[in-house]
């Protein structure tokens, strides 16, 4: 198992290919992102964004090539890697028949969080759900579910946080809370976000990547991005669709 130093890229992807039968979900994808970066991944439906996220989070093995997160290989070091990543999806990934506290307690046990009660209390306050901690999740609104999902993802102090369309279906208040939470933990974490919202993605990112047909069309640091040119490239990519 490799140990990450400050020079180790947060994401190191080389020739990554993921085959689904005859179709290539990812086709020789290569890029690097430094630690502490916020990578926004854009692309049309079917471009391979979610596949890339699933490979980077160890849910799908690559067919070819390598991918490392904080120096850990997604295949060889999968268990160690899972302990240092958090995942927030548009789907909250919570048990509806358990209370907010029971859900967090369950995942605290899954990650071996020390002193789980204190950590759960702290996070429930952060996501403004302390007053609903004993309510079953089935009774929560979409925004509340997403806030609890954020607490679930942050329980174990992950170093890299993956976000899959996290703003999808959120009301403005929930979006503000998510913005604040990201801002609070932004400095200590690397973020990888898949989004269709170009403005939001560019506002948050330090690096931006466009995928189409499973291939990298563009990967750039935010400082080098010409917003209009990037928007035009993105829109022409989305307009071209996928094969």
């Amino acid at each position, binding site marked *: 198992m490799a140990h990450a130093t400050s020079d180790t890229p947060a994401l190191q992807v080389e020739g990554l290919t993921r085959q689904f039968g005859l179709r290539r979900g990812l086709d020789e994808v290569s890029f690097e992102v430094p630690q502490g970066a916020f990578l926004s991944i854009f692309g049309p439906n079917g471009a391979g964004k979610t596949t890339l996220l699933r490979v980077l*989070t*160890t*849910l799908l*093995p690559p067919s070819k090539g390598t991918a490392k997160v904080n120096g850990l290989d997604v295949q060889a070091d999968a*268990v*160690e890697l*899972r*302990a240092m*990543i958090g*995942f927030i*999806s548009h*789907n*909250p*990934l*919570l*048990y*509806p*028949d*358990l209370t907010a506290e*029971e859900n967090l*307690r*369950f*995942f605290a*046990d*899954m*990650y*071996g969080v020390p002193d789980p009660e204190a950590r759960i209390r702290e996070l429930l306050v952060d996501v403004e759900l302390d007053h609903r901690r004993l309510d*079953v999740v089935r009774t929560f609104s979409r925004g509340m579910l997403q806030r609890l999902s954020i607490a*679930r993802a942050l329980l174990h102090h992950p170093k890299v946080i993956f976000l899959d369309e996290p703003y999808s279906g959120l009301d403005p208040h929930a979006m503000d809370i998510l913005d604040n939470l990201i801002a609070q933990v932004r400095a200590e974490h690397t973020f990888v976000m898949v989004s269709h919202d170009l403005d939001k993605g560019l506002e948050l990112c330090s690096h931006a990547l466009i995928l189409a047909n499973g291939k990298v069309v563009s990967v750039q640091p935010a400082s080098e991005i010409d917003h209009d040119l990037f928007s035009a490239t993105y829109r022409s990519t989305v307009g071209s669709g996928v094969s």
Partner: protein
Amino acid sequence: MRPSSWRQFVAILRKDIVMELRTFEMLTSMTLYTLLTMVIYQIAFTAAGGGLDVRLVTPGLIWVAFVFTSMLGLNRSFVHEKDQGVIEAILLSPIDRPVIFLAKAAGNLLFLTIVEAVTIPVFVFLFVLSRGGLGGPAWMLVVALFGASVGMAGVGTLLATISVNTKGRDFILALMFMPLMYPLLTAAVQATSIAILGGVDAVPAFWRWMAWVGGYDAIMVLAAYGLYEFVIGA
């Protein structure tokens, strides 16, 4: 630092128990199904009159009821994880996949054992005690039921994991479950027969069949444990 597998095992098992105690969906449907089966048998045997020695067919009836009731439970054992996508969140955690298998199988065994504990006294009362009583000691019946339930829960948990991602998961589970259960059920029915009918050399004959059950449990549960990483990741 890697989290303790024991803590993860307990968390999954406790969660399944808490959720079941909150809804009673699985236990209620499994128990009602078994009781309904018994009522139907009782009606049929009453209609058949007194010429039939019901104790001869009771072992088969018991296992027909428990095989189908276990399939009811197994079909539901991954429903919460699948429907809400929570299985992804579990797979994203640093857990060895076989720990998920062991915890889920333990939960399924627990629920099946509870249903058996509730319904077997009714079975014995209706079909055994009122028709000549148990031929062998009661512990034989308990050992036969528990031994075969271990195998059903273990193999069933593996098959439920495979079938949960398929269309028509009920059908797929039944299709895979029945052939794999055949050797276990052969031995379980024989051991249960000896427990109910008794006879000369009942105890050695019982243990011969239970050795078969134990061997099946050991081989199939170990195979399921070994295959689980591949099955749940597929």
